[in-house]
Each structure stands twice: as C-alpha cells, then as structure tokens.
C-alpha cells in the first residue's frame, strides 16, 4: 500500500478517528465540509499533531505516536497545495516555484517540464498579487511538485474558484496525474472532481471513514448514497465505442447492453467510462414500448435499500455490471420489487467524461456530454 493512515484526535466538540490504506494513484478524501478531511491532510503534512496515529507514505514513516516518531513538516516531503494557494507575496512567480527546490534532496521533476505541463511559462516574472485565482493555484501546484515531494496533498484546490477557473485547472490536474509518477491525496467535497480524478475514494463522515475502495465500487454502492449527497449516487460502467451514427449519436456497447450518447469525438473501438446516476434510471416490469428513452436494459434486482423518507435505491445487475435506480417506495411496492426479480432499466441519461479512456486505467467520470 502506498498510503497507510491511522489517526485519532479530539478537537473541542469533534473527534476524528480514521484509518485507511490506499494504493498508488489519486486518492480522494471525500466528504462534506467539517467532516474532518482537511484535518487528515494536515496531519499527513505535519501541520496537525494528532493525539494518536501512524502515517506512512510509500513505506516511509512520517508519524508513529506509538514509537515516538513525528517528523517535522519540513522533513516530511509532503507537497501541500492549499485551498488559498498561499503564494509568497514578496517573491516572483519563478522564485515561488523554486522555493522548495533548494531544500529538495535528489533530482526531482525538471522545472521546465512542470512549467510546461502547467502552462505557466508566461507568468514567471510576475508577482502573485497580479495573478488570477486559477493562475495562483497552478503556481501553487507547481511549487509543491518542484519541492520533490513523496506525496502531493491537495486541499480542495478548486473550491475557491468559479466554474470557469475550475474547468481551466482540471485538465492540468489530469495531465499531472497521467504524466507524473507521484501519489496524490486529494481532498474534495465535489463529487465531479473526485470521479474525474481519483482511482481510490475514501468517504469521510463526521470524522469517521464510512467507505474506502476503488472509485467505481464506492460510488455504485447504495450504502454510501447518503454520504455522496442527494442525487449523486450512480454507477460507473465501462463501454466501447462501436459506431458514430448519422443522426449525431454515438453507439456504445457495455456488458449491460447498448448505450447511446451524443457524438463522442473518439474513434470506434475506444473504451470509455460512463456514469449513470441512480436518479436517471426508471424501472419497468415489462419491456416498455412507445417510449422516448433509447436505452432499455434487461436487469435483475439484487437488493433494495431505503434512501430518504419516500425513496429506495435499487441495485440491479445487468450483464455482470451494477446499475443503481432511485425510485419511490410507492413504485417499488406497486412493482412488487424484490431481490431476484427481472426488470427493465430505462436509462434517461448517460454521461461520458472527455479524457476518460479506460486504457489509462482510470475509473472516470461525469460529464459535459449528456444525452438529456
């Protein structure tokens, strides 16, 4: 395991008690504001000293209260990107970028490569006060990487930015993830970012870990629907582009059956991840006819869980894939849904993330392309 974290800490009126392990890649700490995510990342960086705990990154022990090990922040080599960038106002962009490099043991990434990856070459001579929020955040990311860290820790790096700036930074984060062999711990309360970037999700609620595992598995488990937030429960499927049809639709084939989305600019044969939200799936006991929905998948009910006062989440199996459907209790009773029952899942919307090629080994993605 790349990352092993066990922490216990008592704050006034709040206690943190988390334990999880994560493989290499991008690990998202996901939860609401105030759930304790930032405290976890602060403990990893050494800015919070927990009452008890053990933190290892790639085998290096950063903290072990049992053994009395507690590395100072400057010895941990955790590249921390703060929500508010925290660039040094008295230094130029170039000096900010290279600040950590002089302390870094060994050769890290070359600064030219990172400057190029983040597209910040034209900003080097500027001062932080003249930069936009998105530019500041890119400099902060570059500065953290150039300190040659063993782990990159990002604390809601996009939360303070508007939608346009978020859209500006996300592709850079994806490039970093795909081109650098650097483990990343990513704190967020935005599910879209998590789905797009992370291969492991750690769900945190009220200072406790409620789920930890591969992104697709955690997100499609109805048990975690409440933790993901209303309307966000859904399934991730792998699908392959089979045809671009003349009416502007792209036909995909998944294990669950054929899917249609608005034209995806990917050649036939490309494998993609697609996301189907539970609220976009209707159920029928007989194959419906005369319906506008294009995607109708035969499926079998696996289990049913309550989701709020009036709704249930139904977990379906279709050709070996899991699909979630959110229907009212009344409908579930009327259809007499029960485990093992054969149904038809009517999918109103499928989203594909651009750049979510499965061949890169990433579970992905919500999207800009939906067939609503």
């Amino acid at each position, binding site marked *: 395991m790349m990352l092993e974290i066990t922490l216990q800490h008592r704050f006034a009126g709040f206690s943190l008690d988390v334990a999880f392990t994560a493989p290499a890649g991008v690990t998202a700490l996901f939860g609401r504001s105030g759930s304790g995510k930032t405290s976890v990342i602060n403990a990893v960086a050494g800015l919070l000293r927990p009452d008890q705990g053990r933190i290892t990154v790639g085998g290096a022990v950063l903290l072990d209260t049992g053994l009395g090990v507690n590395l100072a*922040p*400057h*010895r941990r*080599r955790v590249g921390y990107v*703060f929500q508010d960038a925290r660039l040094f*106002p008295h230094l130029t962009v170039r000096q900010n970028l290279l600040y950590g490099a002089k302390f870094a043991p060994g050769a890290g990434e070359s600064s030219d490569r990172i400057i190029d990856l983040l597209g910040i070459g034209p900003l080097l001579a500027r*001062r932080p006060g003249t930069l936009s929020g998105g530019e500041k955040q890119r400099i902060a990311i570059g500065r953290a990487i150039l*300190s040659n860290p063993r782990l990159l820790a990002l604390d809601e790096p996009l939360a303070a930015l508007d939608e346009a700036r978020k859209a500006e930074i996300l592709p850079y984060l994806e490039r970093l993830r795909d081109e650098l062999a650097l483990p990343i711990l990513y704190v967020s309360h935005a599910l879209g970012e998590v789905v797009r970037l992370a291969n492991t999700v750690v769900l945190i609620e009220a200072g406790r870990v409620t789920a930890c595992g591969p992104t697709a598995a955690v997100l499609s488990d109805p048990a975690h629907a409440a933790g993901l937030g209303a309307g966000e429960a859904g399934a991730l499927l792998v699908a392959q582009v089979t045809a671009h049809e003349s009416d502007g639709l792209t036909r995909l084939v998944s294990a669950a059956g054929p899917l249609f989305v608005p034209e995806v600019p990917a050649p036939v044969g490309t494998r993609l991840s697609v996301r189907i939200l539970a609220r976009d799936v209707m159920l029928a006991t007989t194959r419906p006819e005369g319906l506008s929905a294009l995607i109708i998948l035969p499926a079998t009910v696996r289990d049913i869980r309550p989701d709020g006062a009036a709704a249930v989440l139904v977990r379906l199996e279709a050709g070996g894939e899991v699909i979630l459907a959110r229907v009212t209790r009344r409908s579930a009773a009327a259809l007499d849904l029960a485990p093992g029952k054969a149904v038809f899942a009517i999918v109103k919307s499928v989203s594909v993330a651009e750049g979510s090629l499965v061949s890169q080994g990433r579970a992905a993605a919500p999207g800009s392309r939906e067939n609503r």
Partner: protein
Amino acid sequence: MTDWLTPDDWQAVALSLRVSFWATLVSLPLGLLVAYALARWRFWGKQVLNGLVHLPLILPPVVTGYLLLAAFGRRGVAGQVLEDWFGIVLAFRWTGAALAAAVMAFPLMVRAMRLAIEAVDHRLEEAASTLGASRPWVFATVTLPLILPGIIAGAILAFAKAMGEFGATITFVSNIPGQTQTLPSAIYTALQVPGGEGQAARLVWVAILVAMGALALSEWVARIVARRISGR
C-alpha cells in the same frame, strides 16, 4: 553653515547623531528577539517581560536615568562588571548616553516590530515548512522579508526617540560638552545662559530638520518595501 552653527553646536549635533545611531543599531537584534517572543512564544513570565519593556515609556525619564546610574554607574553592579571584565565605562561617557537613549527608545521599537510580526500570515510560514524549509529558513526567507516595514518603522522611531532623549540622559551621564552634551542637552544649556536664545533657536532648527529628514526617509523606504511585499 559654519558661521551659523558654532563648533560647540556642531559637536552636540554630531554627538546626538552618533548616540542615536549606535543606540538604534545595537538594540535592533535584541528588539527583534523580544518582539518575536512577545508576538509568538508562550512562556512563563511573558507579562513580566512585557511590563519591563514598557516601563521606560511610563516611568518619569529621570527615574529611568536614576535606575541606570544605580545599575551601570561605577558603583553599580552591572557597571563594575563591565569595567572590570571589559574595561567599558558608561557613566558620564557618550556610550552611557547611547545606553540611556536605547533603553528609552526600546518600547517604541519593540511595539512597531511586534505589530508587524503579529500581522504576518502564519499560514505562509506553514506553506514554507511543507516545502522543506526549516524554522530558521522560514524566518529568514518568509517572516523577515514580510516584517521588514515594521523593522524599519521601529528603527526610525527609535532613532527619533533617541535624538530627543533628555531626562534619562542628563540624569545618567550628566551634561558634559563634547562628552555627553547631546542636542537636547545643548538646547537646555543654551536656555540657561543669558543671551543664549539665539543659539537655542538654531539648535531647535537642526532638531526639526533631522526629525523631518528621518521621517521622510522612513516614509520613502517603507513605501518601497510595502510595494515589494504586496505581491504587485
């Protein structure tokens, strides 16, 4: 100018500048340390230290002068140690005037620096530490540049206060022309002599010019530094 100010006047002005310069320079590191301790550290006796630093500000200067004489005079404990071990005599010397000026100016210097240190965003220092900077490095490369305006303001304030110091100086080191007669002491002496008003007025002009010059210089430097650290 030479026919305007007598050599004795010049001597007083030069002595005041020398006393103020050294008083400011020597108390700078100590002032920074005390300001940092008061702003950042938690330790037993912090309020006592704070009180001690501010004491010269609220005591009558003549009391401070008396206490300096009692401690650093030739019969005082500190004065004897300095003379026996280092051969330094402060009483009735210009060095004593510098000590009196430094003590009187210290609270102002510490106050300006402390405010500057308290205004530094601690989160920037945290960011520096996560980038691999040890504490001394963080101080040298982040804290110090950011509090530079406060240090400059404190130093100028201390210099101006030292230039104007009178009560503690005359009590501790007396008013010896060429030795301890600073600008304020010279003005005071001139006013004691019948017909000395003219000389007093000339010295007052010098005092005003020096004060205004120091102020203008500090404004100018502070503006440059502020622009540099504002990030623009």
